[in-house]
């Protein structure tokens, strides 16, 4: 195998373009093409999951049942979550990783290109299976994305399809993570030591390890559900000596690191963008690395804060409460570092920077409501209310999704070779930001007033805030069509230079725009201005 690869390298010295036709995509082993496929797939899932959110918010716009049956409403909440988490946010970050990590560390491609092809093409199959459950007798899974037994075991024909699609998503994520780790560890440019790596690469290295550590645990948990249902085991069946609460422990042992899997790469993206548009190096690069590692470690010992109400010994509640609040320390380090990076910088406010600034501000709001939820005595009131919905949407939408948008705008000229339409981008940003707050901010009040989550109808005292949230949601959904308009017109703008922005420091800006099909066939030499970030 080693010799075969060496031969290929010998024979094809000159740059050859991509294969023609559909084969280019089906059999692609090129990190840029696979990255593009991940990003396009993620955008499609974002709109499918978004359409489900529109169904949810339409039904909730006024009290009473108007559009859909409660059963279908529950299917929508469950599917919306599964699709957004596993289909939109995670693949978007894997797409960014595929495109940018080799360019940022000066590698010619990902380390395991054929596995890269597999890890992408498993995803459409997984989501094809998951979406097909909408048309099955009994409908799609409706027991919540957390799949708690015994409720999830009442899912109809869709149940095994749910389990197998989760298995496939897990396999895809694990293969993607192995690829990222091997690429980062083995294929960096010769002078790029670990601590010289750009923050985005660092956060992805940590994320990839998190994924490898917890996706198999989720696979195990859903396998136990499967055998409980079909093969007579009693992992979670109380009648046979099992315990349904144990599922919650195993699930959240996966689930809490999972939320950092969705936010750490976002930290990485804004850590690239804020220095570029502040025209200053990132403040405290190494402390950012240590902070991200701390967050990753702490994510393994806080899972039970999702289940304070199951009946836990006092000492358990104390431990999980304090451990959870401890996460605010490294997260605070990151927030203050971003602010310090901007301090006295020559800032400009192009679309990527606007999304990043909104990220810092709005993610912090989500972080603070997280601290409130971490308080075990207070959580008894907040548990399973709209306050929780407000919290995790603040960290995921103006958190992760805004960071993905910021990254897309930041690197789009590098991908297409043209500047996107800045005006359209700014309109997209402002409408998104206004509507996202209109959607999710009132949910805090609803939750504190006691409105439970996952219900299709509610008592009339919650009416007005729900109407506001629904108007915001539809506005936010429509705003995202502007992003499609930006993408469709992205080739019409002025030709982009290699640097695109004002003296960015990472390696991807040393290759031409658009980035050629093959880059860094010979590793780049680092000078002091590059890779230091």
């Amino acid at each position, binding site marked *: *195998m*080693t010799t075969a*690869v060496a031969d290929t390298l010998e024979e094809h010295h000159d740059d050859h373009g991509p294969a023609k036709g559909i084969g280019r995509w089906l059999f692609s082993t090129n990190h840029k093409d696979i990255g593009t496929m991940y990003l396009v797939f993620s955008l499609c899932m974002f709109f499918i999951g978004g359409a489900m959110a529109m169904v949810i918010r339409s039904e909730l716009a006024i009290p009473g049942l108007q559009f859909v049956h409660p059963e279908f409403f529950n299917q929508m909440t469950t599917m919306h979550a599964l699709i957004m988490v596993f289909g939109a946010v995670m693949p978007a970050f894997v797409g960014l990783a595929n495109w940018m990590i080799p360019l940022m560390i000066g590698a010619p491609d990902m*380390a*395991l290109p054929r596995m890269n092809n597999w890890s992408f093409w498993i995803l459409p199959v997984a989501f094809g299976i998951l979406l097909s459950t909408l048309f099955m007798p009994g409908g799609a899974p409706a027991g919540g994305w957390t799949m708690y037994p015994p409720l999830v075991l009442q899912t109809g024909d869709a149940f095994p399809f749910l389990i197998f699609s989760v298995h496939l998503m897990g396999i895809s994520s*694990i293969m993607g*993570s*192995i690829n990222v*780790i*091997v690429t980062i*560890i*083995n294929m960096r440019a010769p002078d790029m030591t670990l601590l010289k790596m750009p923050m985005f690469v660092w956060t992805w290295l940590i994320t990839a390890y998190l994924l*490898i*550590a*917890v*996706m*198999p*645990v*989720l*696979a*195990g*948990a859903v396998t*136990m559900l499967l055998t409980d249902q079909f093969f*007579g085991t*009693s*992992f979670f*069946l*109380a*009648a*046979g*000596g099992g*315990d349904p*609460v*144990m599922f919650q*422990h*195993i699930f959240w*042992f996966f689930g809490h690191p999972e939320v950092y899997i969705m936010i750490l790469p976002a930290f990485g993206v804004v850590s690239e963008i804020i220095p570029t548009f502040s025209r200053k190096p990132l403040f405290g690069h190494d402390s950012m690395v240590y902070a991200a590692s701390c967050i990753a470690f702490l994510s393994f010992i806080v899972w039970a804060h999702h289940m304070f109400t*199951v*009946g*836990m*010994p*006092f000492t*358990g509640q104390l431990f999980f409460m304090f451990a959870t609040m401890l996460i605010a320390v490294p997260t605070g380090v990151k927030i203050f570092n971003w602010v310090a990076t901007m301090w006295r910088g020559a800032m400009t406010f192009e679309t990527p920077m606007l999304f990043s600034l909104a990220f810092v501000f709005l993610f912090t709001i989500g972080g603070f409501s997280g601290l409130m939820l971490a308080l075990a005595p207070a959580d008894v009131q907040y548990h399973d209310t709209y306050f929780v919905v407000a919290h995790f949407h603040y960290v995921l939408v103006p958190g992760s999704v805004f960071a993905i948008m910021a990254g897309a705008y930041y690197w789009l000229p590098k991908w297409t070779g043209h500047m996107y339409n800045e005006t359209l981008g700014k309109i997209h940003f402002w409408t998104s930001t206004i509507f996202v707050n209109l959607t999710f901010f009132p949910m805090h009040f609803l939750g504190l007033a006691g409105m439970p989550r996952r219900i299709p109808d509610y008592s009339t005292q919650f009416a007005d805030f729900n109407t506001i949230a629904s108007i915001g949601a539809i506005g936010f959904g429509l705003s995202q069509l502007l992003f499609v308009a930006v993408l469709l017109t992205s080739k019409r703008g002025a030709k982009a230079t290699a640097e695109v922005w004002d003296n960015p420091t990472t390696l991807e800006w040393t290759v031409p725009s658009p980035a050629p099909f093959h880059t860094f066939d010979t590793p780049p030499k680092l000078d002091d201005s590059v890779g230091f970030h």
Partner: protein
Amino acid sequence: MNANRSLVAQLLILTAGMFGFGFLLVPLYDVFCEITGFGGRTNAEAVVVAEAPDLNREIRIEFLTNVNSYAQFEFASELDSMTVNPGKMYYATFTAKNLSAIDKVAQAVPSVAPVTAAEHFSKIECFCFTSQNFLANEQKAMPLQFIVDPNLPDYVDTITLQYTFFDATSVASNNP
């Protein structure tokens, strides 16, 4: 290439290890619950406690019974509550009736609240230790023999013992 291969091998081992760890959590969780009384779990086997009774202290024991929605049974405690002295043995009786016309196996699952009391509530004999066989429409009385440990924390004056009654027929046929 060799560096890639060994790193991939290590990461695959880590993946397999974490898959195994997910299953290892099952016995670990059981051990954890036995030790801490987490989830209101009580002992699942008979214990012998030899303690001098503390006649000056009175604890109220409340009995709660639930029937799982899939189980066609009637299940009730003879008494709603009783007052006991720590360190002394007591008896209580529960009755259950199979409402279906076929033979069934049932399993009662206990839980004790507050959780700090769980480890001090010892069952000497309990119908919940094993699954119970019911003939069609059979009704039977089932005994519980228990003792409250005098080391029960001072602030506990009421203990709630709760049973949920499950139809375990399918589970029992799977584990003969």
